[in-house]
């Protein structure tokens, strides 16, 4: 007799859902769309501007394409994926009215949340890992196997780029976790899928707005997405400055623990009226 709502059972509940299929489709389509877009313009740089941007290097080989594809999706797409996969399962069950049947199956409240969170996190992780891997494959086929060119000039040899990119993927995964956790908490509270994902998006956008206000100074460090680009610190020549990466990861863990804890606390005593 396995435990109620095993991970496999939960995975089966989520896998066939349309939103899951859509997200997987987008993740797989994105690198192809980027390649198609780049093929429209031979010289992606802005004419007359000598400043080199990430996008200018994107067609310079598999690694550069991977970093660019990952960069553009880490801005928002992956956050939405996290919000959707972590925040939506509980309110979705509530909206299907199946939540009460799960709870009387019986699945304990904590067990239900744990299964949903673990599967949500694992599927998010799977996508976050799949995206750069797929982009790498597409990019290498489209643009060759040149080693990674650093934005400031110079190259990162393969042996250095691969582990650093893996670390960057891990870091982004940690960075999107608080958004997922927030979405999870809102979903448990409101029992509406829209509020969960929408709430997380609003949090992200408000955080972005506040982050752009210089007057807030160091207070901005506490914003959930403040350090979201710190993984680019990994892709430099020479030694890595771990300061921002460390701070970003710690803030993320703090918020993730906080919101997940709030979610559990809330759900434990919540009356299920749906």
């Amino acid at each position, binding site marked *: 007799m396995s435990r*109620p709502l095993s991970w*496999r*059972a939960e995975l089966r509940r989520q896998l066939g859902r349309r939103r899951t299929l859509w997200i997987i489709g987008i993740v797989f389509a994105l690198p192809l769309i980027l390649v198609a877009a780049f093929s429209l313009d031979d010289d992606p740089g802005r004419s007359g501007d000598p400043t080199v941007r990430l996008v200018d290097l994107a067609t310079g080989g598999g690694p550069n394409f991977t970093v660019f594809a990952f960069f553009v999706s880490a801005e928002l797409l992956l956050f939405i994926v996290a919000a959707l996969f972590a925040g939506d399962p509980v309110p979705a069950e509530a909206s299907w009215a199946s939540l009460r049947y799960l709870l009387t199956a*019986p699945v304990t409240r904590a067990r239900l949340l744990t299964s949903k969170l673990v599967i949500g996190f694992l599927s998010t992780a799977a996508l976050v890992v799949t995206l750069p891997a797929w982009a790498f494959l597409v990019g290498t086929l489209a643009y060759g196997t040149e080693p990674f060119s650093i934005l400031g000039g110079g190259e990162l040899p393969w042996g250095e780029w691969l582990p650093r990119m893996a670390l960057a993927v891990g870091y982004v995964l940690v960075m999107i976790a608080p958004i997922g956790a927030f979405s999870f908490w809102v979903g448990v509270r409101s029992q509406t899928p829209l509020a969960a994902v929408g709430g997380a998006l609003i949090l992200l956008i408000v955080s972005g707005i506040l982050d752009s206000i210089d007057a807030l100074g160091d207070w901005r460090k506490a914003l959930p997405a403040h350090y979201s680009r710190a993984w680019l610190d990994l892709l430099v020549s020479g030694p890595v400055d771990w300061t921002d990466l460390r701070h970003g990861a710690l803030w993320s*863990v703090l918020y993730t623990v906080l919101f997940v804890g709030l979610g559990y606390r809330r759900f434990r005593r919540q009356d299920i009226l749906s």
Partner: protein
Amino acid sequence: MQRLAQARRRRALATVVGALAGVSVLAGPAASVSATTAADVRTTDQLVDVGPETDGTPVRLDTRLYLPEGDEPRPAVLLAHGFGGSKQSVDREARQYAADGHVVLTFTARGFGRSGGRIHLNSPDHEIADGTVLLDLLGARPEVRQDGAGDPRVAVVGGSYGGAFALMLAGVDQRVDATVAAITWNDLSSALFPQAAAGSTTPGPYKQLWGARFFGASVGSLPGAPSTSATTTAPAAMAPPSSAPGPSAAPAAVAPAAVRLIAHSGQTAEPAAVRGATGMRNKSGSTGRNAQSVGESAAPAEVLCGRFELALCAELQDAAESGRPSAALTATLRRNSPRGTIGAVTAPTLLVQGEADTLFGLDQADANAAGLAAAGTRHAVRWTDGGHDGASSNPGLDEGAARTWLRTYLAGSRTDPLPVPAFTYSLPVPRRSDTAPVATLDAYPGLRGTPRQVPLRAPAEPAALLTPPGGQPSSMTSLPGLGSLELPTYRLAALPGMSTAFDSAVLERSLTVVGTPSVRLRVTSTGEEATLFVSLWRVEGTDAVQQRSLTAPVRVALTPGRATDVTVDLPASVWSMAAGSRWRVLVTTTDTAFTTPRQARADRITLATPTLTVPTADGRILPSTTERDTESIALAGGILALLGGIGGSALLRSRRRHREHVREEYADIPLVVDRLVKTYADGHRAVDDVSWRAERGQVVGLLGPNGAGKTTTMRMMLGLITPDSGTVHVLGRPVHPGSEVLGRVGALVEGPGFLPHLTGRQNLQAYWAATGRPPAEAGMDDALGVAALGGALDRPVRTYSHGMKQRLGIAQAMLGRPEVLFLDEPTNGLDPPQIAAMRPILQSYAASGRTVVVSSHLLAEVELTCSHVVVMNAGRVVTAGPVAELLSSEDTTVFELASLASLGPARAALEGAEGTRSLEVIDDPSKPTLTVVSDRPRESVVRAVVDAGAEVVGVGSRRHLEEVFLGVIASSQAPSADGSPDGSLVERLRQVRAR
């Protein structure tokens, strides 16, 4: 990173503002002695007669004495200011030393401010001789502790111009007991004409930008000069009071720490001093002219020289023009330096020098330290990251060291060991930090500590470096006074065709370079003398950055076409060379900061030795100065606290759960609901003290109007809602969220719930998988039989009709054949044949020893299906019992009449008759019914009706459930309703249904 750059830029701009402010010095007329009293420090201003100028002009110095509270004699501090400053610019420091319990004497040096005379650049005959007079003054004050007659216990303290004054005075006057000399020179000629070629005695190129600033400072103070009004008013405009509320606002940020702690260098004299002087000028009505200085009818040479001594001025101007000092100038500058007298200093001396100071580099302090060491004089060396180019990032530490030094040696009690570490240096400010880590060593290693070799690579093809005719354009490697500004970028420094670069290999391990790196170059030139500038950069991709904005100028004589090797000592400083970084030695032919030859020349530079020799040190980093990552520590603490809280509360909960009590006496009773109460957040009491139970084999109907609390009760029975009080036990086990006993309960509550994207069969399988029980226990086929969905079973649930979902929901509730089945409105959406089919299913289910609880509105259905009913109204149980008992009773008689016409007589016979308690009439034309409750025996009631002439077609004792239901509901409401128990039944029915 951008933020940091901005911050630096702001600081650098402030430096510029401050430097410009320092340029203007006003000379006021001689004022009488005045005394003011501060809170705890009394100050006395006094003009002191000192030796006359060379031409016999008498000179008086503007002085101020700070006396701390108390009567006993105190040690004294003679505090000298920087070039372009005055006694005002060291006021803050003076008060600090006074607060430490010292008598402090500040003065405006000869040639500055309201003092008379001319600037001799610390000539032993003038400025230093003045210092001896000031010591005499202190020796005559009763407030000053005396070591002997006319020998005060005194320390001389100064920065930059004042620092050299301090060292030189200590060298000529043995009465000095301690010295603190900051950011100053050892040999003014080598400071202004630096030569980085090792072993060369030829003066190097002239530091033209710094030289220009000195002249600007001096000429600016000249009355009548065209620039006067600009330089006297501009600072006020450029450093408005709002940006400089006190001596420690703008100037504090501006002034290098070493400067701030002791005296202001000429370039950073504070605007406050200027404002003070301006105010004084207004008070006295003076035009800012110094009577003892240059008159309005000054000769052109005098106009150009400002308050500089004229002979010195002329020589300096010649040197600036030619880029080479005359022998006379070299001699004068050397004489006006501590170099000659440093060996005679016996007072313990603290040398503070800036690591990125383009004016007086660490080599100057090193020479002073060497002189002191040779003489066996106690001394300590402190390298800060401040200097003439920027503020120290640890001003408090620098200030503290100076005060400790003075306290110790003025007390005279302690001489050994040194009160501060013998050598202190600052590491470069780490990225995203504002303060430099500070490290110490027990001995000063000089500029060539433990050497290490960093391999250098020459470019594949040695290019010819061109010095363009006229020497323009010029490379920019550092901007004097703007050392911390990140403006001289590599692109401005490495001009194409005029520079060559030698890159190191990637460093395998980290090095802390403390001192002078050196590189050996091979120069082949078209000229007879080559001037080159060498700087050290860190490679960052295609770009490079300087950790220290310093440049080593080299002037080397050679034979045209013949290769000459020259060892270049780069400026001494401290670098952090991280493992993995790459470094670059850049050689350029021009540099804006220096006078460069104007003749065209082509050089070929290669490496004589392919290494960069770097002196390293491994000091102890002061823990207070290492960047403690407080953010990380706080965050980690927060995370741990959160986890601790979560863990603690989880532990508490798990303990509480173990206390749940099993009621063994209920172990055989499928369902016991005991005194349940639930009040919702809005205050509505949905369930109020509800108790009932269901036994094995029963089909219990839970009845009640809408809002009676049926669903809330059912949710509490399933643990979906936590009751405020009361318990639900299933087979003796308490029900709470997640109770295991719920596994023995099947439920359909308020409609079915399925995953729309799965088929009916998949949904049942998914549900069963969620229970975690073995598939064999599910009884899937039986359940599918109940659902009777046929082919629809393999279609997604979202295509199902309401009735199909309902049947699937019942089937799901029956999965695993639970011992208790809760069905909330199971017949919703079912058509009559399906309802009829459901009836035997439920009855046979109960007959197998299980229990079924059904809530329904369909009273007829309940009457047919259920063995027992529980009737609820307004949150309470109104009645409960077996259906059969509820429907029949001894005192009730139901008459079925043939027609409506019979109704009247029958009613007349019973109404008002003895024993009649209630009378209910249903005037349905097809089936008029009369129900009477009477104390009389039934036969007498029947007789009375028949006797009355009513045509009775049937007499019964059993009512329909609907009647009972309405009856009990009505009677439970009676007290609150109109009080008439026999109001129209139809009316009451309407009321109930309307609810």
